[in-house]
């Protein structure tokens, strides 16, 4: 019994790290163009898109989870698409969890990167253009290196926020050991089962982890505190 609980804890930790890593990479890929667009556009839609990206900051995770569940479910538009592609249904799978987490943590990655791009301003890119760098070249050789602190903040926040999610995991992923049972859910299970010792180990670990992340963020990158 003891060893099973222990291996289940380990599996939960492993799954959490795997989820957070994949989600962080995806968030950087998806979030960077959004942040770039938001930082530089003069479009009338800037406000709308900015608000949509920021929604997870204020929405209860259950609301976001509910809509994603409906959309990805057998009768939802995403569900119909995945079924017709032969991918089956996404809820209660690891893939579904990854997709939901990307939505949920998006503002935590987009906003620091957007702030960093805005802080750079137009001038270095104009300088790059007068030095024969195409817009794509200037983005990689000037904008990204200068926005490095923003990327660092975004990656750390995205990773940490994914590790810490609970509500959306329950809504989309359920509680399947080894597939969708992450640390936060595992702690909940331990507490429900009155296994406080095990809960302490995991909860203490999470506390230490979160503190280390924030400490790293604040000491490595003091100028970006406002990103939070």
């Amino acid at each position, binding site marked *: 019994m003891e060893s099973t609980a222990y291996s289940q804890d380990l599996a939960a930790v492993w799954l959490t790290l795997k989820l957070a890593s994949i989600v962080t990479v995806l968030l950087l890929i998806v979030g960077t163009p959004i942040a770039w667009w938001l930082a530089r556009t003069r479009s009338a839609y800037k406000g709308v898109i900015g608000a949509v990206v920021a929604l997870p900051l204020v929405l209860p995770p259950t609301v976001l989870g509910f809509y994603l569940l409906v959309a990805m479910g057998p009768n939802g538009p995403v569900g119909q698409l995945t079924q017709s592609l032969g991918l089956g249904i996404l809820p209660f799978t690891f893939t579904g969890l990854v997709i939901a987490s990307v939505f949920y943590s998006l503002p935590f990655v987009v906003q620091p990167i957007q702030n960093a791009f805005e802080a750079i301003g137009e001038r270095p890119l*104009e300088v790059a*253009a*007068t*030095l*024969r*760098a*195409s*817009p794509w070249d200037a983005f990689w*050789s000037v904008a990204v290196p200068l926005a490095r602190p923003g990327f660092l903040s975004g990656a750390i926040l995205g990773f940490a926020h994914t590790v810490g999610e609970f509500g959306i995991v329950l809504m989309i992923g359920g509680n399947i050991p080894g597939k969708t049972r992450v640390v936060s859910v595992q702690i909940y299970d331990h507490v429900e089962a009155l296994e406080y010792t095990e809960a302490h180990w995991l909860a203490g670990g999470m506390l230490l982890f979160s503190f280390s992340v924030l400490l790293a963020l604040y000491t490595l990158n003091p100028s970006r505190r406002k990103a939070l």
Partner: protein
Amino acid sequence: MSAEIQASFCLPRGDFRLDVDLRLPGHGISALFGHSGSGKTTCLRAMAGLERAAQGYFAIGNEVWQDEAQGYFLPPHQRALGMVFQEASLFAHLSVRRNMEYGQKRVLKSAPASERRFALPEVAELLGIAHLLERSTRQLSGGERQRVAIARALLAAPKILLLDEPLAALDLKRKLEILPYLERLHGELSIPVIYVSHSPDEVARLADHLVLLEQGRVVASGPLNQVLSRIDLPAAFVDDAGVVIEARIAEHERDELTRLEFPGGPIYVSRRQEPTGTLLRCRIHARDVSLTLVPQVQSSILNCVSGTVLDLAPTNTPGHVLVRLDVAGCPLLARITRRSADKLGIRHGLALWAQIKAVALLG
């Protein structure tokens, strides 16, 4: 490389509207001069392609970069230009050397070897920054930063160099530190330089060709002295009216004076450090010139040259007129009261003497 530059832009920006049609020489320094809001920076940005004028044409010689009539617009990164902004805008994540190589590397990729005009050590030497190459850009002074920015622009093998008030953000000491380098560029560069400035002294010191801009329009454009000696310019330019003469140091005299010679005769100034034979640019303000019908021997004013009146015009100060003289082929402006003009009977062709109270030496 002395192909003429053609620039014509019509660019509305809210209340402001840039509407210029310029022909500039394909060599030497052309200054775009005007007060803030006159459109000089916008005009320069349009040349670089950083602003796209809906009606625009820009060509250096037969190389056309913009021709909106044909719907043609070459984006800035495909134009062989070098640009230096008001603040140096060095890339903070790169060392001085890597900053300088940024444009150079990209040119090497695309341009044939024949288009490379400068090598890095050469340019670093020209601008006096060879000892700074391995530094971080944060360790540089304002003047050093601007010199690095100029070097970086030159290494991108430009066919034209655009300078947007490169000295405006510097204090007087740094300005004086960087001006000799700009003069060196003037001597050694075969490409045209467009220099935006609101400082009459910088323009007088550096420019060969002068364009005056006011509220987005060209007020005057021509060789430096031809524009400076015009007496029909709008009020905004009259207060600073004056001409620039080039004079050669003839002799350092015993009593701490240096005698300069220009076609109109000798000019005495406080002792200079430069060796005899050096060519200096001097600015003579119209307000520092007074006129007299007979040479004044009993006067404390040393500099007195003879000339003939070309014409005169009212100024924006009531009671004052601007008189243009011909002094052995050099134009000279004098600002005097209307009463004096009437008393002396100033008219075209009158021969008289101009007393010069002050001479500003520019280089």
